[in-house]
């Protein structure tokens, strides 16, 4: 193990701007091994991965549909991480938002959309924030690390979903573990004709824009960033670090809750066990790839959305299993995390 060691030394100035391209390049080289293993030509496969999804109107809109929850969970995670609060619990917070939406979505029967939608979205935000609250209190009041507590609440939320669906909310007619369909007035309208693209995408863009505005343009955002970059320096400068962490946790939970609302009201129209195939965890990928900045989150979410649709098209065209999309996402994350280390460190012979 002796020999190579990391030494602190800043990278050349071209490194940081080039990092995303470098990461994508390294990722494609690494994952091309799997494409070859699947018996396909890597260049061909990557054309399907990143070009084809944008080639037709239909698939481009599907990319946006897939991007919607990633924008929201990515924004949720990035907002918290930016303030130095490591919320690994976006998945659980999303599920709670989904539960709240399925519940509120049936209660608002009869109300006009203009009243029903805000009520449902509000319920989802409250639910997401509420799920984020206990770990935040434990962190701010008692100094208990939030990584483990937020993580462990994810399976609890999932059990809550399955408990509801196998118990009181089970569909009485079909017997399937699915909740009652939400009221028509609670369904998100589509925002583009002849597509599945729904209001949730617009909401996600609003959240990203608001997140960008708050973090870069306001006093609060500066305080949050300062807290994340150096808690001690922030405290010395008169910032209430505990309040910033609490705020970051709750806002993050609320945004993740909106992601749950969006999936229920825009796609599923009811609570199902498969409401989230791990969007909360993908949010960590998106936030990390986006360097915790909202613009970066938007780019990263769009890229992962493309890759995920692209994985389907590649699978149909070349018989490369669509799960390659997952592999590419995860590899991209790990490559990026590794490359980020070299912003500040160099490998040197000890």
């Amino acid at each position, binding site marked *: 193990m002796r020999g190579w060691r990391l030494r602190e030394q800043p990278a050349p100035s071209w490194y940081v701007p080039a990092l995303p391209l470098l990461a994508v390049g390294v990722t494609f080289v690494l994952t091309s091994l799997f494409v070859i293993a699947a018996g396909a030509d890597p260049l061909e496969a990557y054309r399907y991965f990143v070009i084809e999804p944008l080639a037709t109107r239909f698939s481009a809109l599907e990319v946006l549909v897939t991007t919607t929850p990633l924008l929201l969970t990515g924004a949720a995670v990035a907002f918290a991480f930016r303030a130095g609060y490591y919320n690994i619990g976006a998945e659980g917070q999303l599920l709670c938002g989904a539960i709240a939406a399925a519940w509120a979505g049936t209660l608002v029967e009869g109300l006009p959309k203009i009243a029903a939608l805000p009520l449902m979205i509000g319920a989802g935000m409250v639910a997401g924030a509420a799920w984020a609250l206990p*770990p935040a209190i434990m962190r701010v009041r008692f100094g208990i*690390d939030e990584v483990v507590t937020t993580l462990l609440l994810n399976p609890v939320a999932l059990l809550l979903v399955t408990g509801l669906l196998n118990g009181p909310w089970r569909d009485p007619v079909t017997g399937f573990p699915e909740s009652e369909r939400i009221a028509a007035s609670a369904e998100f309208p589509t925002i583009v004709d002849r597509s599945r693209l729904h209001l949730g995408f617009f909401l996600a863009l609003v959240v990203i824009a608001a997140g960008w505005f708050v973090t870069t343009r306001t006093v609060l955002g500066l305080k949050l960033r300062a807290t994340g970059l150096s808690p001690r320096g922030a405290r010395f400068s008169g910032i209430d670090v505990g309040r910033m962490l609490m705020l970051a946790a709750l806002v993050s939970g609320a945004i993740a809750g909106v992601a749950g609302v969006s999936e229920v009201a825009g796609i599923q129209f009811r609570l199902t066990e498969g409401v989230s195939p791990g969007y909360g965890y993908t949010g960590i990928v998106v936030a990390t790839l986006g360097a915790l900045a909202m613009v970066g989150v938007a780019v990263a979410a769009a890229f992962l959305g493309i890759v995920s649709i692209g994985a389907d098209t590649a699978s149909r065209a070349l018989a490369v299993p669509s799960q390659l999309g*997952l592999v590419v996402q995860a590899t991209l994350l790990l490559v990026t995390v590794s490359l980020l280390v070299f912003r500040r460190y160099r490998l040197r012979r000890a």
Partner: protein
Amino acid sequence: MSLLLTVVEATLRNATPLVFGTVGELYSERAGVLNLGIEGTMYAGAFFGFAAAYGTDSLLLGLLAAVVVGMLAGALMGLLSVSLGANQHVAGIGVTLLLVGLSEFSNRIFFSGRDTLPKIEPFAQLEPFGDGALAQYGLTYFAFLVLVPAAWWVLMRTSFGLHVRAVGENPEAADAAGINVYRTRYLALMAGGALMGVGGSFFTLAVLGSFTLDIIAGRGWVCIALVIFGRWRVGRAVAGTLLFAAVYALQLRLRILPGWGDVPFELLLALPYIVTIVALAVSGANVAYPGAYLKPYRRT
């Protein structure tokens, strides 16, 4: 009476993969690395163990494949969190996503286009008394009779275990005492990964004889909860696995009884997580986390 007996048997069976996973995670964490790659490592162990057994017709080679995959996963976690000093939680989530993706991808490559689910003849249960009493898989006997005592003994009675505990508590002190912090952490992660891999392969090689998607279903996260619940002690963590497995086995049996259908058993299943979080809250910041938890080590 027979209900009790079947519950006990099911408890030991259900606890087996958790024992492997928990002990594996415990070694990683005692060395100072929270390995959130466990969920994916168990998944990869389940799949690649199965695929190897299917391809070679040898359950033992399947087991070996699970060990190797687990060690590679541990080494990858080491590369990221020990050598590069990256964020442990992001690296761990990434390892999990990668291994789940790789397993499902390979599953499609190896086994797609078949009409029937590929199956192998799984490990048979051992029946020490020949009459079905205490009939359990060999891996279960191994877990409780060999692994648990050995894990305790290695951690507390060998130089390696001493080094693991030292680099997890105070890497500076370990370094000053001439211990190679990096190598020790790698070894702990790889040994831990091997155990996680075997724990995952228990489902495919022993219980089911086949691989299905979402086969681990969050059991890796259970193991993380149990390690913390057990306060990083082998004995207490294993007791936790038994408790969890017993609750799990009990609810499965109660659920099908008339009149019990509406009881929210999911709340029971959520108990290990909730109890762990409450335990953390109650003991506050005084929880005896390994001293170097989540901290990469860099020599100045």
